């Protein structure tokens, strides 16, 4: 993350010494990505605000402990913090809904599915429409690229539960994508 001629390493030093300017820049650089990240998990706007605020405070208080490990490590660190805060928020608010919805979805031939016609905000909406449990596993597996065993450890569930949740999430999402596709192809139905 090189911005304004300052290297990432220099930024980290400034952040550790609690330099106000550095923190403002850091916030400006990372908050849009972290916002999208948090919204995928938490989905509620106010809750996301809290998650972000808590995350930045945590980063502020723990910056001294962070050790630079190459390009992108700062963003990865920030991402981990936000995900942890988001998961904690979910655990607190939505424990009941986590494993809801055992509908069966028809299997669509997956060669047919494509997301190229969808905008990112469309995709965001689709992901947010998934039930909490599916959504969390889906996010961690597909976008954060965690393995099922890692997901099992993070969410404190069984590994095969993670796999089946993902499978169902995929099917559900596939159906919704298909529905959107159909909608987009049939403007007269809108």
């Amino acid at each position: 993350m090189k911005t304004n001629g300052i290297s990432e390493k220099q930024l980290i030093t400034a952040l550790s010494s609690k330099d106000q300017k550095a923190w403002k820049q850091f916030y400006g650089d990372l908050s849009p990505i972290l916002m999208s990240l948090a919204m995928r998990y938490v989905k509620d706007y106010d809750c996301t605000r809290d998650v972000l605020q808590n995350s930045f405070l945590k980063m502020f208080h723990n910056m001294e402990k962070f050790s630079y490990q190459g390009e992108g490590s700062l963003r990865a660190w920030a991402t981990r913090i936000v995900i942890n805060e988001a998961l904690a928020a979910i655990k607190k608010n939505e424990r009941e809904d986590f494993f809801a919805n055992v509908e069966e979805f028809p299997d669509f031939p997956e060669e047919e599915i494509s997301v190229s016609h969808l905008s990112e905000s469309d995709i965001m909406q689709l992901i947010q429409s998934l039930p909490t449990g599916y959504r969390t596993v889906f996010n961690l597996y597909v976008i954060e690229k965690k393995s099922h065993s890692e997901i099992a450890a993070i969410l404190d569930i069984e590994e095969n539960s993670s796999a089946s949740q993902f499978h169902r999430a995929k099917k559900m999402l596939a159906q919704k994508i298909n529905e959107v596709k159909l909608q987009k192809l049939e403007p007269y139905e809108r």
Partner: protein
Amino acid sequence: MKDNWLDDLGNRMKDHKMDPPENLWEDIHKEIFKEEEGKIINLNFPALEETKNKPGKTFSPAIGGKFWFVAATVLVFLTCGAMFFYYNSDIDIFNNKFAINTGNSKLNEAGKPSALDDYLEKPANNDEAVNIADGESGTSISISSILRDAKTIFSEGENVILHAQHSVKNRSNNILNFKNAKNNLFLLPNKDISQKPNNITTNPLMNANAGAEDELQPDRSNRSLEKNEEVASSGNDNKNKAKDRFFFGPNSNQLASNASSQNIGYTTMNGLPFTSSASSAAHNPMAEIMLSNTQEEVYTKINHKAPLNYSLSIGYRLNDKTSIISGVTYTKLSSESRAGLRTNYVKTKQDLHYVGVPVQITRQIWQKNNTTLYANAGFSVQKAIAGNTRTDYIVNNNSEIREDEKIKDLPVQLSFSTGIGVDYKIYKNVSVFAEPGVAYHVNDGSSLNTAYKEKPFNITINSGIRISIR
């Protein structure tokens, strides 16, 4: 690949950006940099459910040069208190021995010679009164009550010797005159008691100074009493804030000295004659001790250690200047007595444990910055919950017999106190205090002899910590 669409989705969403909420940075900035400005340590991490209001506790230590100034002031205070201790206003404790020729050796219900009954009743006319006259002021003190408390320490045939103790305020060395109209009760000079019993056999008239008037020598024991100081009491605050209504904390009350007394002859801690049946088949240590010591005067020395006191107090502020304090208090009274001489003696150790409730009202006199001056008054009711005595009979420096006994009649001790105090705030809601004052311990009516009984009036210093809450 089947999951192409997933990879595609993942890649696109990974770097997706959204506008963060408005004013989020301002809120974050306020939180992290306002804290830094105030240099306050945030002890708690905000929980997720609390967004705007952070619950962290804050404190700012304020110990500086002022603390040492006040500590020096308190030290001066304590030194003044200690100086009062050395200023003696003597109260004389008289140990009086009376000899009475009983004519017959009948004892009345109280275990005393029935010949004494005349003196124990209030006399019909003044001629029969037994009085002690203060040589200087001319006032008379009836000794009926003194005689009532007298203990029989020796009796042989018709002669009985009684030992009585009482205190009389006497600021000079004036001898008090003893008038006895009936002429069968005599006051013995103190040193007579150490003589062998058969010196006093036949007729006390022979040994005591003949005549109606005997001189009563004051027996200056080691005890001394501090002057009772009138404590100037004016209003006093405990704390500035009306907000903090409750406070609590530990404190400890120390008397300025210990107390000691001395009796002639062999007595127990309580001044009673030894009626111990401590003996084994082989020997009677008490008899051995007495026989070994017949060549010299024998004294019983009693020493009461300064009481040990610890309390936990809870206070409530009635208004800005006045507070009421109560709590729970523990006191340990330790006493030792030694009857006899160097190598042959009876040693007694007595421990009493009291638990009680103090009540005190304080009122602020003066207050500036972190220092508060106040006056207080109160009382304390304590009940002895346990007590034991250990008696060692030492013959030729060896402990022949040891008796351990639990004290059965555990008394209730009432005391009144007043004084002034200094309170210094060291943290936001924590202060230390010292209260020099005086206390009076009401006679508990028991036969137990304690520091409080020897010296009912005392200078005390109560010190501790106060923590304000709510």
